[in-house]
């Protein structure tokens, strides 16, 4: 008996969640695009586990789109984890062609997967809708580390690469290799220690396992704020607001690659649907709800669509390919 009640609570919760997306379904006046698209729910796929960056992005965007009444049909978020998004990318290319009721979150990892040959598909095989945000990379060191600035760290790497382990997730090794390359060091000799992400890297930095690490700014934010970690450089053209860190541009390194995040749809997605979503995401990018979300997560809003997006993706792919070639020594 009891079990039934428990199950009822769970399913009721699930229903409430699904209903969140349809709040104010009757006020169609704010529809982003003309025409009657979307007629029904549109699935927002997070091609990773619940709680991952993509998942949180998908859920935040779906919630904000509903809150701002930009999209008034339900936007159920589904997790389709697998091999850094490549499992779902293949599904999108092979099974969803021409559909208009599914979009997915993606990021620079898409470029990395292509560069590493983890997937036969790339951003060119699907409909890239829009980029919404970018997260800058940052190089950090513990507060009591011997490295006072990026140059002294790079010099130590040049002198004896083996003795300077650098903590980085697989995806984040490329930008660091590009910097070392700019500093005319030999990127193939960098002693990378692979970590899953900021949490593991922070532990390693505080335990003294590594003195250098690179990841997205938000990953290190708590410890940067408490002063346990020091920023050596943020990979950007312009300084980041609220973060007292020199940029690579200031330091004379032309490496400003950032982890973009955006959305893609199936190949041959109907034009009406593409236009609707480009419009919806553009509206979202300037809305109050999104501004609050982005600020909390330290995501820099960087909206791009159409030609701009294509040339940005082409440039990023080229840099990532270059970076991967440097890491693998090819």
């Amino acid at each position, binding site marked *: 008996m009891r079990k039934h009640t428990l199950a009822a609570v769970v399913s009721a919760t699930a229903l409430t969640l699904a209903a969140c997306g349809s709040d104010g379904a009757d006020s169609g006046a704010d529809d982003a695009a003309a025409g009657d698209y979307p007629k029904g729910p549109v699935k927002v796929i997070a091609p990773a586990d619940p709680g991952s960056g993509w998942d949180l992005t998908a859920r935040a965007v779906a919630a904000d789109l509903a809150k701002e009444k930009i999209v008034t049909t339900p936007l159920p978020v589904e997790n389709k984890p697998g091999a850094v998004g490549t499992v779902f990318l293949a599904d999108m290319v092979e099974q969803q062609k021409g559909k208009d009721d599914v979009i997915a979150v993606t990021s620079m990892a898409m470029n990395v997967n292509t560069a590493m040959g983890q997937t036969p598909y790339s951003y060119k095989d699907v409909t890239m809708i829009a980029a919404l945000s970018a997260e800058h990379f940052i190089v950090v060191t513990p507060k009591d580390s011997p490295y006072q600035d990026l140059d002294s760290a790079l010099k130590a790497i040049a002198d004896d690469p083996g003795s300077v382990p650098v903590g980085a997730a697989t995806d984040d090794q490329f930008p660091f290799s590009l910097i070392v390359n700019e500093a005319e060091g030999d990127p193939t000799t960098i002693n990378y220690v692979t970590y899953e992400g900021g949490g593991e890297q922070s532990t390693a930095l*505080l335990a003294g396992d590594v003195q250098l690490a690179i990841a997205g700014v938000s990953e290190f934010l708590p410890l940067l704020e408490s002063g346990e970690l020091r920023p050596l450089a943020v990979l950007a053209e312009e300084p980041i607001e609220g973060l007292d860190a020199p940029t690579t541009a200031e330091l004379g390194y032309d490496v400003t690659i950032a982890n973009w995040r955006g959305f893609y749809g199936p190949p041959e997605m109907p034009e009406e649907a593409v236009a609707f979503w480009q419009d919806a995401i553009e509206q979202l990018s300037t809305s109050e709800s999104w501004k609050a979300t982005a600020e909390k997560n330290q995501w820099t809003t960087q909206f791009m669509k159409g030609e701009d997006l294509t040339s940005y993706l082409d440039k990023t792919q080229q840099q990532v390919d270059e970076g991967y070639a440097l890491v693998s020594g090819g």
Partner: protein
Amino acid sequence: MDALQSLLTGLAAAVTPVNLMWVFVGVLVGTVVGVLPGLGPITAIALLIPLTFGMEPTSGLILLCGIYYGAMYGGSITSILIRTPGEVASAVTALEGYEMARRGHAGPALATAAVGSFIGGSIAVLGLVFLSPVLVELATAFGAAEYAALLLGALLLTSTLMTGSRLKALVSILVGMALGVVGLDPQDTVPRWTFGSLELSDGLNIALIAMALFAVPEAIRHLALRERDVPERLSTQRAWMSREDLRLSAAPYARGTLIGFMAGLLPGLGPTLGSFASYAVEKKVALPERRKLFGRGAIEGVAGPETANNAGVGGAMVPMLALAIPGSATTALLLFVFQMYGLQPGPQLFTRSPDLVWTIIASMVIGNAMLLVLNLPMVRIFVQLLRVPPPLLYAGVLAFTFIGAYALTFSFYSLLVLLVIGLIGYALQETGFPLTPAILAAVLLPLLELNLRRALVISDGDWSTFVTRPISATILALVVAAVVVPLLLATRRKPAIE
């Protein structure tokens, strides 16, 4: 004294009707997701995050923390009754708990799990309150070399405790290892045993392996037996612990709390290692006549690990709150929620938002008490499940695990993996191979490999790093003393037995 005062203030704030309600909802949802295989606290928290946006930060965090430790309670129920661990941390509970249930002791097993969880959960919260500043140092004293040494110790300790044929246990360990290494290697991302499949490059989910090796073979075995009626010994289940059960559980509660809390503190390991280590320790310290009962329903083997996995939650909160370092995927998610509310965990959190932090901590004490009150009367109801005729019960178990497997990746690929590993498990079980070593190996070996290789990359390939670092050297010395020496002595004493 200061901390005590703050805790009391927090208690006062937490007992408002609204907050009490959220504690209740949290632990209830937590229990349910703990019971359902595949649906763990991570998924539940991720799904509920959007819902908490509109809530007061205190209420939202109370709710989500409640789900986290509530799930640790729920996980034990199915482990004990139908050998289906809801999440990895409760896989160990299935070892003795299920055997107890098979012998008509499901009630005591469930009761000791609930009491142990309460003790572990509550004392860990007190540890979090009073020892946080000291413990934070410990959490960051462990690097990859220390983790590797610790894991080596845990693995050796647990594998020397296997009963029965050494050779068969070894084969089982190899099977577990083989399952554990599937996927991209953790250092250089080279695919291993993936046969070109993208899905396999992610590795095999450990919860999926646990379900496949525990629940599926057992269910198939019972269905193959074609038993129609409930065996006599199952239909008369004792509902409560005897005085003797309680006496036997007392020491494991204490040790489990300590082991679980310490393991939870270490960001790289989390509650899973705590429950595994607790089981090994209980078996090691048991008196010879009790040790014989391990594997055949020893209550210590339920009490210790269940206490440990709940104590681990309190332990994992220390580095999360004090350093903003998540020890597990679940705490990483909670960290994100704090940030969503504009609260930055870290050394300043206690000074910047003391009211909030202390209210949440106090809510954990209340939540643990609620779980105990909620769970103990339910024991009587839960054991009724064993009166379901075997064909229905085990068909239900299979359906249940398949749903759980699907919920892990939302794809049919998981079902295929569950079925294949489940059939391998069934074949091994029927030919007399123990499956526990396989699970141990699948859980611990990948962690050992990861940390071993990291330590070696960091030392630039120099193996002496393990003996020149003081903590690592100490751990290794203890491992040699505790594991290797008795083994050598034993081999010398009785040369060709078994």
